[in-house]
Structures are given as structure tokens and as C-alpha cells.
């Protein structure tokens, strides 16, 4: 299925305060799609999780927020797509990283699994040479 990109925003993430811009942009985009306040907050939380991971593990990277649309049986539906990319050391064991309560840093170890839970589609790729890419999508009604 082909997704059409309606709007895209690139945000460089290299220090903790950059997270603010990521969060507010994600919230605004979710609001534009018509997600209610609770969903906006959840999406912003998932996006923030990914941005925080970049700062914590790779120190810098980029977050791309896209407003996308696709055809469905009930007509066009819109969604938000977040891509978080870095050139960090990569995740040595993705299966483990997707488990609850697993963390190599001093954290709760709930981040990636919860992003997967909140979003509808989730894709992760990681290697020591190329860093980590996470793409997650959440479709509206």
C-alpha cells in the first residue's frame, strides 16, 4: 500500500532541549489529524521516547515527522509517521531491546516496547555501521 506524504518536518536532535520541539510538533500534527487529546498525548509520548533514545544512546540524530495518508475501504485515512535515525553504535540485540524491563542504560527498559504498543506500525533496523532507524506509524480514523 502506498502512503502519500502530505507534510514533513525534519528536526535535528542533539541536546535534551531539542526534545521539546519534537514533542510539540508531534502533538500539533496529531491534533491536525483529529486525534483527541489523550491520543495526542500518547503519540507525543511515543515520539518523545524515540527522541530521548537518540540523545541517550547516540547523542545526536534526526527525527522526521510526516503527515501521511493512505487509501482504505472507508476512504482516505490520515496518519502520523515518525522516523528516528541516528548513526550511533546500534542495538546489539534487537529482540532483547524489545523485551519489557531490558535496558543497557540506567533506565526503566520499557521504552521501545511501549512505542510499539502505542503505534499501529513499528519497524526497527540497527547495525553498528549504520546506526539505528525506527519508523512508527499511527493511523487516525
Amino acid at each position: 500500500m502506498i502512503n502519500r506524504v502530505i507534510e514533513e518536518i525534519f528536526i535535528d536532535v542533539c541536546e535534551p532541549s531539542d526534545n521539546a520541539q519534537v514533542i510539540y510538533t508531534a502533538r500539533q500534527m496529531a491534533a491536525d489529524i483529529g486525534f483527541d487529546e489523550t491520543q495526542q498525548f500518547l503519540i507525543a509520548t511515543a515520539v518523545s521516547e524515540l527522541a530521548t533514545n537518540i540523545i541517550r544512546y547516540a547523542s545526536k540524530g534526526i527525527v522526521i515527522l510526516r503527515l501521511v495518508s493512505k487509501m482504505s475501504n472507508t476512504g482516505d485515512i490520515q496518519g502520523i509517521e515518525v522516523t528516528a535515525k541516528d548513526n550511533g553504535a546500534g542495538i546489539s540485540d534487537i529482540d532483547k531491546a524489545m523485551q519489557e524491563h531490558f535496558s543497557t542504560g540506567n533506565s526503566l527498559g520499557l521504552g521501545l516496547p511501549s512505542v510499539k504498543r502505542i503505534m499501529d506500525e513499528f519497524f526497527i533496523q540497527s547495525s553498528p555501521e549504520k546506526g539505528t532507524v525506527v519508523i512508527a506509524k499511527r493511523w487516525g480514523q
Partner: protein
Amino acid sequence: MNEKDRINNQINNQIDDNLALQILRQIPTPVMAVDRDLKIIFMNQAGCSFIGKNFEEIKGSYCYSIFNSAHCQTPECRMKKVIEGEDASKAVRNEIRINDRTVYIEYTAAPLKDDNDNIIGGLEYILDITDRVRQEQKLKEQSRIIMEISTPAIKLWDRIVVLPVVGVIDSMRAQQMMDTMLKQITKNSSKVIILDIQGVAAVDTAVANHLIKIAKATKLMGCRCIISGISPAVAQAIVQLGIDLGEINTNSTLEDALSDAFALLKFEVVRKK
């Protein structure tokens, strides 16, 4: 040839080639063209004065030896991309060093084609965005300062302190909140601290982790910590994230938290008779 093409052709012919060259030379932004090996074949006046060299000096030099930018000789180089036929015509940011000074630029590259549509090189125009970048850095610094000063601890009642948290919590700010709270506990011999998170933009696991740590630290100092302002959205986020707030007292509103605090300290609010 259809009608539209004919009109276009006519317009094109009306512009004198010489005039076009003059315009290109004098346009007040750097314009450069290179051949397929990235050797400079054209640089207009603005470009020459931008790098402080004559065209004769740089003609035939590799562009990366002149600009030495952050993109030069990396896969990021848009010039190389367009020469290889990739679509990279979007303006991108870059930085170059001229005489030990960092200049921030934005450049847009396009393939240079001959009459038969073969790509024979690339061209680009450059905008100096140093002022813009400086402004952005200033703004970033300011937003950091705002964040720093937006962590007030308010003594609400005898031995009750409230700490409203607004905006985005990062680890630096969480540390500040922790410091402010712990200082307040000793200063006012507080017994109850209310952390109101109604205005927080997102509660991800890092933020939750900070909140848990703050609550634990206050407990160690013999003080109760109540987290208030748990909106339906925050509650759902915490459940979705699978975070266990454990023994931390939470309330949906600051008002409820305050009445809990009163109960803990055995205060009673009575209407005047």
C-alpha cells in the same frame, strides 16, 4: 512543436545570451558550476567575493578543496548526488570554514545538462544563513534558560510545598527539580511535597523514571510526595508504558492532593461561623 513550446521559445530568444550571463555573474548570491569530476567551471562574482578569491585562482580546482565544507567528500554532498542522477534538489544546510571563520550556508544543487539532456556536471547556489543560525542558537539558549527558571517551589501551607511542572522534562531539568525539592524540604521542614504534572507535555519512560526517583528521594528525607495533575491522558500513557508507580500517591487534581496533604498533617479546613 506545440503552441506552448513555441511561445516559450520566443520568450527565451528574446533574452540576449550576453545579458543572461551578466545577470548570472551579478546576481547577489554565490552561484557555482562544476564538471562531472567536481572541478569548478563557473563561479559568479558573489561566489568569488564570498570565498575571497579570483575566478582565475580557483578555475579547475576541485570544489571541495575550495569550500572544505561539512558535506564535502561525504555521501551528504548534494552536488555529487545530482551529477549521479539522484534527486537531491532540496535546499540543505551545511557549514564551511573560510579564514578560520565558520559560515553557515544553505545550498541547492541541480544537475547541469547539455542540449541533449546529458548530465555534464552540476550547479548550485548558496545562501549565507549565518545570521539565521545564530538567531536559532540564541533561541535555543533562551528556551533552555526558560526551562531552568520554570521550576519554582511554592510554600503553599505550613509544611506543604507545591512544585508545578510545566512543559518538557529532560534529565537536566529533572535534576533541577530534585535539587529544588530537597532544598525546600530542609528549608521549610516540609512534610508533604506536591508535584503537579498537569502541564507536562509528554510522560515517556524517562520522565516517569525521573518522577519515581524524585518521589523516592523525598521519601528518604522523611517527606511525603504526592503527584497530582494526572489527567486521563497521563493516566493512559503511564498504563500504556507499563510503568509501575508503586507506592507513590497520585491524584487527578491539585485540589485533591492538597486535601490529602491536609489529612496527612491532620489539618482541618472549617468554614467561619
